[in-house]
């Protein structure tokens, strides 16, 4: 049954494609994003940032800046409390609050070009900008450490004097923040059984999520000690808890109102400007708006890691994978916390491989502190593993889809960490590609090739709250704390309408602030439809339960005797006239009052996601330019609640992956200063660089979830770099091992090809 129809479906609304409820505001420019807010008396803030990659701050003098006409406050880390330098359990995820605070405003040292050092509030953004020039900072410049190799070298300059790792012990200063290892079976034995072994070293570059909307925050501090932050964020509750910690105030004094958000992809699940907006508001007695410009976004928010991966895999000649050995090191940025553990858990996740060892290192370097980027860590890893698998498939003479099906993970296959897989759709996504019109079509022409790759992402569950209010006219509203980045509020309305038997137009979705709704984890980790959807589902069921109780009262029956189907209340035995919600609403007052359904969840039954992507490319061998001719992505969504937005996630993730594959990278010079601080030279794909992105939604329901949905937001970004590399290999016979595969690198590879490369140069 095709996604987007209800023919033969057990659902009436789930799986349809209504126009999103916030659509008109968005297409008329009326929707309010964080930077659109304005308040009477509002001041404008700007942040002074380090021009050095690595330096000690010897002194900061803000007097001249303070005296500039129009400046109302200047702050540094001296205006924030010192926080403990140890891992604390901050909500769900462990966090070092000292590092977090130092990232907001540097304390003692700056650790990357762009590291925040001071902040100013003034009557105009231009005056605030001028004030920054008047702040005098005395730096002692230190040598920068820019790569994982530099960071791991024996006499590397040390970024964080107090950083230790378990292996090196309490007395050794280090830049290696963590080492994790995963093991299964016996790799020596495994490789001895292999007929073919391929080993390569891969390098990937630091890349940014590239959301079009820069960060923003408006802070309003009240004289009674309560403060409100309006901001574009993926997690208003995270903003509340982390900002409160950085400011040294109780969480209950802070209310965070999520504005509409112009993209996040993981990069807006942490804080930068938010506590500064409150701090400056407190100092000035006015609302203060802070926004970043694009250069600040690139220099000083949270891109994802580049790094090095050595990957070795072995297969028997009939195409069975027998062993995998991986060494991987990712850039954490100036503070620990790269996604290398996730990368390690994802790298061979789509396959059933009996013997493996994976060693993963988190290394601090003088780059911005990394933040989550759509399936964090997995894309870098898949670039390595999926190209090796492609080479092995070629050596075995097996079609790349068939090779993956042969080795594909399924229910019962062990995961790299955690229990064996429950029912999953990995093989189904490969089969969907194999059977797609794209894969079945012949690719003809010189220097053209086709590549396939598969990706995995865990998806998370975690906590969500929801309320469903029944209104006097028989319509309903559904309130959650899940910020809507991609159309999820429509899905919440769909789920509510499904359960209540209402038309989706009669359900209004709202996103509430941190006082108006219960705790809700971030919109990220592909969790919103699954976890918040589950809370919404249960809240709607709670409303149904209450409706049945009221009908029972009116009919003088027991609640168990009342049924609710397709929006109608009826009695199991006959003798009563069925009632719609509209019919019963006028009588709610006398039966106990209005009805609000509520639910909170900590979602456990979360299905992981797989995506398989097929890409056709044409390479200009003289210039190295790679053109994407055709792309198809097949992804297991479990059950697509709003298929258009599931397709949208698949297409968006695929295109980010293509940008990562072809042209996106951070360029630092020898001093560790970022050279491409704008969207001219941080090259994201434009619509002229792409064809239509074909999508196939595979639906293998996630066990344990009432709707069967799996998280869909992330995994599509994982396969494209490998798929493109595999396509290039078939097009011009070179194996690319460095991202991005920009024209200069492709030309170099072609010119140095020594004839030992594997693939043929032209498709038939």
């Amino acid at each position, binding site marked *: 049954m095709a996604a987007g129809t209800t023919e033969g479906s057990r659902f009436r609304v789930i799986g349809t494609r209504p126009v*999103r409820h916030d659509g008109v505001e968005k297409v*008329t*420019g009326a929707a309010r994003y964080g930077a659109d807010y304005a308040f009477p008396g509002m001041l404008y803030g700007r942040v002074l940032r380090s021009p050095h990659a690595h330096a000690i701050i010897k002194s900061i003098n803000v007097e001249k800046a303070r005296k500039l006409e129009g400046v109302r406050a200047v702050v540094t880390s001296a205006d924030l409390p010192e926080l403990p330098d140890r891992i604390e359990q901050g909500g769900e995820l462990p966090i070092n609050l000292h590092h977090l605070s130092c990232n907001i405003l540097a304390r003692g040292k700056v650790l990357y070009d762009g590291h925040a050092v001071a902040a100013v509030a003034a009557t105009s953004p231009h005056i605030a900008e001028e004030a920054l020039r008047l702040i005098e900072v005395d730096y002692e410049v230190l040598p920068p450490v820019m790569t994982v190799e530099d960071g791991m070298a024996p006499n590397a300059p040390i970024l964080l004097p107090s950083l230790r790792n378990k292996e090196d012990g309490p007395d050794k200063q280090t830049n290696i923040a963590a080492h994790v290892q995963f093991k299964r079976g016996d790799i020596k034995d495994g490789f001895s059984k292999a007929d073919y072994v391929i080993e390569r070293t891969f390098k990937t570059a630091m890349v940014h999520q590239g*959301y079009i909307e820069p960060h923003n925050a408006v802070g309003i501090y009240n004289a009674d000690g309560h403060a409100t932050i309006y901001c574009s964020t993926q997690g208003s509750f995270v903003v509340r808890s982390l900002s409160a910690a950085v400011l040294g105030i109780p969480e209950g004094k802070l209310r965070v109102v999520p504005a509409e958000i112009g993209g996040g992809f993981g990069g807006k699940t942490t804080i930068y400007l938010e506590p500064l907006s409150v701090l400056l508001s407190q100092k000035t007695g006015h609302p203060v708006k802070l926004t970043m410009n694009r250069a600040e976004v690139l220099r000083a928010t949270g891109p994802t890691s580049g790094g090095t991966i050595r990957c070795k895999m072995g297969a028997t000649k009939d195409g069975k994978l027998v062993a995998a050995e991986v060494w991987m090191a990712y850039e954490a940025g100036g503070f620990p916390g790269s996604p290398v553990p996730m990368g390690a858990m994802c790298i061979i996740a789509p396959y059933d491989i009996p013997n493996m060892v994976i060693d993963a290192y988190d290394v601090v370097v003088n780059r911005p502190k990394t933040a989550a980027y759509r399936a964090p860590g997995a894309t870098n890893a898949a670039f390595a593993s999926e190209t090796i698998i492609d080479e092995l498939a070629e050596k075995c003479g097996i079609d790349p889809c068939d090779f993956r099906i042969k080795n594909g993970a399924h229910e019962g296959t062990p995961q790299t960490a955690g229990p064996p897989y429950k029912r999953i759709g990995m093989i189904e996504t490969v089969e969907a590609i194999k059977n797609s019109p794209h894969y079945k079509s012949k690719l003809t022409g010189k220097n053209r090739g086709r590549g396939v790759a598969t990706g995995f992402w865990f998806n998370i569950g975690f906590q969500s709250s929801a309320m469903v209010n029944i209104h006097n006219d028989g319509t309903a509203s559904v309130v959650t704390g899940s910020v809507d980045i*991609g159309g999820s509020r429509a899905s919440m309305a769909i789920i509510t309408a499904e359960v209540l038997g209402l038309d989706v137009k009669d359900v209004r979705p709202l996103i509430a602030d941190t006082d108006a709704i219960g705790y809700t984890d971030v919109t990220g980790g592909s969790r919103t439809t699954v976890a918040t959807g589950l809370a919404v589902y249960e809240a709607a069921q709670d409303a149904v339960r209450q409706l049945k109780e009221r009908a029972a009262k009116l009919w003088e029956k027991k609640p168990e005797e009342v049924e609710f189907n397709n929006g109608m209340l009826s009695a199991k035995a006959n003798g009563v006239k069925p009632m719609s919600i509209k019919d019963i609403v006028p009588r709610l007052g006398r039966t106990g009052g209005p009805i609000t359904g509520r639910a909170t969840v900590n979602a456990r039954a979360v299905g992981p996601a797989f995506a398989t992507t097929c890409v056709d490319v044409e390479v200009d061998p003289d210039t190295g330019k790679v053109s994407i001719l055709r792309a198809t992505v097949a992804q297991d969504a479990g059950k697509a609640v709003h298929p*258009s937005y599931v397709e949208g996630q698949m297409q968006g993730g695929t295109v980010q992956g293509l940008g990562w594959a072809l042209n996106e990278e951070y360029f630092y010079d020898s001093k560790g200063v970022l050279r491409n601080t704008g969207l001219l030279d941080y090259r994201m794909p434009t619509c*002229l660089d792409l064809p239509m992105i074909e999508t196939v939604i595979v639906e293998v329901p996630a066990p344990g979830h009432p709707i069967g949905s799996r998280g869909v937001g992330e995994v599509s970004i994982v396969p494209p770099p490998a798929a493109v590399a595999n396509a290039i290999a078939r097009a011009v016979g070179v194996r690319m091992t460095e991202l991005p595969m920009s024209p200069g690198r492709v030309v170099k590879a072609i010119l140095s090809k020594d004839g030992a490369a594997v693939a043929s140069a032209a498709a038939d």
Partner: protein
Amino acid sequence: MHKTAIETTINGERVEFLCEPRQSMLEVLRDVLGLTGSKEGCLTGDCGACTILVDGRATCSCLMLGVEAAGHKLETVEGLAQGANLHPLQQQFLENASLQCGICTPGFLMSAKALLERNPHPSEAEIRYALAGNLCRCTGYDKIVRAVLEASKATTSKAA
């Protein structure tokens, strides 16, 4: 820090405003006139989120000074709909799910409007060329291009 009085036309209406010479047209729209539909994405003309029409031509309002508006006809996203009647482009964006976060949408709508007014029935390639100055990070552009193709079927040579 002197301000200049500027008279211009925005969305068919005569508008007067005060601004400093260093304020861009984007700042004037957003901070002086309260028209926050045009968005700031990069301030270097590389993302198109601030796209408005100046005398019918798609223009990055971040690369125009407010004082340059005098005597010209400006159009912003706020002027696209006629009261409660959405422009065919707006309608098609909604029906084709061509927006996810929506921050790039005003810029795309204005660029597409300029395109359809000059070339009422563009091919997919022509649409992609005309919209190359508008970045979207959420959608991968597929549904945006489809919406413009659909809207081109609905419009005649001078859009409503």
